[in-house]
């Protein structure tokens, strides 16, 4: 098992994103650090557009993640609906 992670700036825009990630990835651990939130997950982490839209209450383009993204680890695979990090 290897850890993948992603980190975002702490702000109002990322709050629903992080909630969505928690809903979709029960195995993930969320660390609140000064000015940033880091999320670790074993082997894989999936971010879904639909879940973010439900949490935010508006349409969301996954490429908007770029604005508040700090760092990540793992191989990325991205399309309109999902943003997946994995070590598989």
């Amino acid at each position: 098992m290897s850890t993948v992670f992603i980190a975002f700036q702490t702000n109002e825009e990322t709050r629903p994103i992080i909630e969505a990630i928690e809903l979709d990835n029960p195995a993930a651990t969320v660390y609140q650090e000064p000015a940033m939130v880091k999320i670790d997950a074993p082997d894989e982490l999936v971010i879904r557009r639909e879940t973010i839209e439900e949490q935010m209450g508006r349409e969301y383009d996954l490429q908007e993640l770029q604005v508040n993204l700090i760092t990540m680890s793992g191989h990325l695979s991205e399309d309109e609906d999902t943003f997946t990090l994995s070590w598989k």
Partner: protein
Amino acid sequence: MDTPVNKKKLSLKEKYSYLTRDLAWEPSYQKKEDLFPYATYEGIKVHDWSKWEDPFRLTMDAYWKYQAEKERKFYAIIDAFAQNNGHLKLTDARYLSALKIFLQAISPGEYAAHKGFARTGREFPGVGPQVACQMQAIDEIRHAQTQIHAMSNYNKFYNGFHGFADQRDRIWYTSVPRSFFDDAMASGPFEFMIAIGFSFEYVLTNLLFVPFMSGAAYNGDMSTVTFGFSAQSDEARHMTLGLECIKFMLEQDPDNVPIVQKWIDKWFWRGFRVLGLVSTMMDYMLPKRVMSWREAWDIYGEENGNALFNDLARYGIRPPKGWGDAAEAVDHMSHQFMLALYQWNFGTAFHSWIPSDNDMDWLSKKYPNTFDKYYRPRWEHIKKLEANGTPFKNYGLAKNCQTCQLPCVFTEPGDPTTLCHRETEYKGEHYHFCSDHCRDIFQEEPEKYVQAWLPMPQLFQEPINGDLEAWMKWVSLVDGEDNGDYQGSHDQTSFEKWREMATSN
């Protein structure tokens, strides 16, 4: 090509493919080798450039849109910071030393990376990496500009920020990152991608930007958090590009594996040496600390690096040769390098200081196996000399390592009480090194490294000729203002005076 009519919107994949593959063409009246003359001499074999997949699939329209948004956020905060005397909200002006090192040593590296990616984007025959490198070149120049812009506000009030461009070229401690980037830019396009895209971006920037920027937030420096996180939001894309490039090389031809391995060995160690500076910033220069250098290494070096190397093992790649020595050095490097910076602080364009009792207790807790045993006694001794009115200054010059250009201040693996020193002879000249790994790097490409400009020998050359005052002028260092101990400095007295004024009438 006809625009598809059966769909309202192009998918991300289609948009990306129009932007990249569709822009490429096969040359008809020039040979491909003439158009891309640097693509093969490094020995990397590529059979099919169309296999290159940029996982972010960012198209130009989206790129400009999101970058503009980042800039708007950045400038809103920078303006607010300046308008509200943000500099007086710092925990303490000691913190500024870390920023000065950042401006003198790291921001010029962003500019160098910009030049390197602009060139590499031109030299790769594949259109996928061409586009990704172009975007990264623009990102890197944005980083240099926003960093310089954010820190220019401090330059209005404090010493040590004004001469960063000269210091980038001339002062001794910045030659470590400068030579790192010069070495990368003097390599072929594939090696450049391993050096910057892979080693620097994927393995090392997390250590530079993430915990340090979190530290800036803890220390009340809103402007640095802002440029740091704004830059780091691009780094995620850069890391992905570096990782993609390495996978692409390894998958294209098994003959590429030993070449890539050699570059991983070299660039990991070169990057690790650049981090020597960063380790002192994290362990010694943040008045309020977030995590120790060791803790940051455990998360972003050890854990993340191992995940990556476990993954690359399927191609026959092993962890870099210096990996084990690096893990051991992490418990020593910040202390050894900070002692060096302190004893030569007449020659640094930032302040250093003897750690307080409180600082030393924190260091003991974070480095239970090394600090009290090896480093506390030295600081206590220096403190005693200071109290007796004979502060410890070292006016001797350290030997520079011919490869990483750091002064040879680090110790032997397995023996933290003996200085590590290696040498070799090449064409009748002696060359000195800080470690086995730096010597090995030299021996792979001696003709490259014999040309290195070294800051210490420069002191005895024109136009300095051994004159310390002439040297200070030459490196734009104002004696008595920019350098020396923090205690009693202008920065200290100004900060305390202004803070007092800000909180009383």
